């Protein structure tokens, strides 16, 4: 692999795919996320996975200098957006830091599930969420949708997949409502 391929500016196709994924999952645009994070550019680190980052102008210049003078490429930089998956239909699998920053800036406008304290604890242990743990939702959530899981204090806990249509409130409290995809407990279990 050429060194230049290790860390590079995102292509137009990648930027469009990231924007579309963000709008679909959270209701926020890439532009809004960039403003919230005070970043100006999307960078892709292509190793075994294709990881996307948002970087500031200062970080971008520094990266160019590092690559030029020392042939060094960052391991990680700025805001880690997530992994780009797929070839024909490229999409972003959002990261934990992205979820946290979206929650802090009130940019999670749809697909969010607010949980009670018991639900928070279980979710952070890597467990799925029952209907009974959900306090409220925002937006229309259908089975199979990617959702963000938050506490009632609007603290981001992780990402999940809706197992049922959540706008339909007629199910039993013990029904699994959200399958845990990744939660903040990952930092403890896998983060190193």
């Amino acid at each position, binding site marked *: 692999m050429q060194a230049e391929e290790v860390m590079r500016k995102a292509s137009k196709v990648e930027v469009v795919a990231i924007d579309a994924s963000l709008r679909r999952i959270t209701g926020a645009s890439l532009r809004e996320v960039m403003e919230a994070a005070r970043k100006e550019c999307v960078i892709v680190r292509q190793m075994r996975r294709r990881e996307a980052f948002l970087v500031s102008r200062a970080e971008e210049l520094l990266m160019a200098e590092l690559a030029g003078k020392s042939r060094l490429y960052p391991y*990680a930089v700025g805001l880690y957006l997530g992994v780009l998956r797929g070839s024909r239909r490229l999409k972003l699998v959002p990261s*934990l830091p992205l979820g946290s920053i979206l929650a802090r800036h009130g940019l999670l406008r749809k697909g969010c599930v607010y949980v009670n304290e018991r639900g928070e604890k279980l979710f*952070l242990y890597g467990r799925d969420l029952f209907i009974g743990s959900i306090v409220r939702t925002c937006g229309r959530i259908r089975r199979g949708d990617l959702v963000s899981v938050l506490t009632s204090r609007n603290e981001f806990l992780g990402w999940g997949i809706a197992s049922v249509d959540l706008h339909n409130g007629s199910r039993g409290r013990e029904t699994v409502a959200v399958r845990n995809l990744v939660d903040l407990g990952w930092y403890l279990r896998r*983060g190193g």
Partner: protein
Amino acid sequence: MNLAEIRSLHAMTSNPTREDKLFGAMRISQQAKRLAERYGYLPYMVERYIDLFGAKEAEEFLRACNRPLVKSIRCNDYLVRCDELKALLEGKGFVLKEIGWAPHGFWVLNEPFSLGATPEYLKGYYYIQRAASMLPAYALQPKVGELVMDMTAAPGGKTTQIAQLMKNTGVVVAVEISRSRIKALRSHVNRMGFTNVLIIRADVSRLRGFRERFSRTLLDAPCSGEGIIPVDPSRKRSRTLQDLRVMYRRQVELLKLAIELTARGGYIVYSTCSIAPEENELVIDTVLDSEVGESVDVVEAGVGVGDSGLEEFRGVSFDERLRKCRRLYPHKHGTEGFFLCKLRKL
């Protein structure tokens, strides 16, 4: 004493250099041998502690190293107010007490369950950090918008503290050579919500082309760990004087590089979790005595805790400016053994 030791001693006495004096063969007193046996140390270590503190205080130090350290955390005020964090954790049965000299630090006096398993930890509201290890970032005093480097960054306690003090602005370049440790560094940066960190996995010497770029540089140097014996008792017997010599040479090399990379008018903080003068005052003194040393001065660390740096150890005199460096000890300050020194690039 074997033949090699006799030769080494002879060479030292006929024409001893400072290195020979500190790393050469050492006469071990009966008192040091007795204490070493009682507390399970290598005798040369205790001999040095007697030189450092005197016999009575050396034993106090050895006793303190047998007691566990009080745990401590650093509140991440970028994400949560520190009084709010205290209330949240105390609501769960933890007992916290502010560390007077660390603005974001708390002693953890009661820990009903693991500090690393609370939702507040996972949300990035605090970092589990030994108290003295909080000092280098405070001494560095990074400012909003600056370009700062952490030369040996993993696992990320000091990197995230610098990012926090910079209010998540500017850029912190965090360099780490270890493939396994860099994962933890990235994880802590993400967990604590910082987006102003650029992590590089490389030998820091590859940054030589970046002359005089960084406003501030932190070198928390790789060391023997002679200050963290209360945490890792295996270090009572795991390092010889020759291991210290290898460390010393690497530390001198890294400190010279840190000075090279720092902009004029900028600051360098050198720290270790070791109380060994060979890894601390001797390193700074050697660098001050070199060509690079002409471009720096020692300044007050301004951390409000710790003893002064040494001016003399085992017959070797150090630059008197080293009094401005700081030393912390378990028996005096209740922390791990620690050393830090702040330099200003002229």
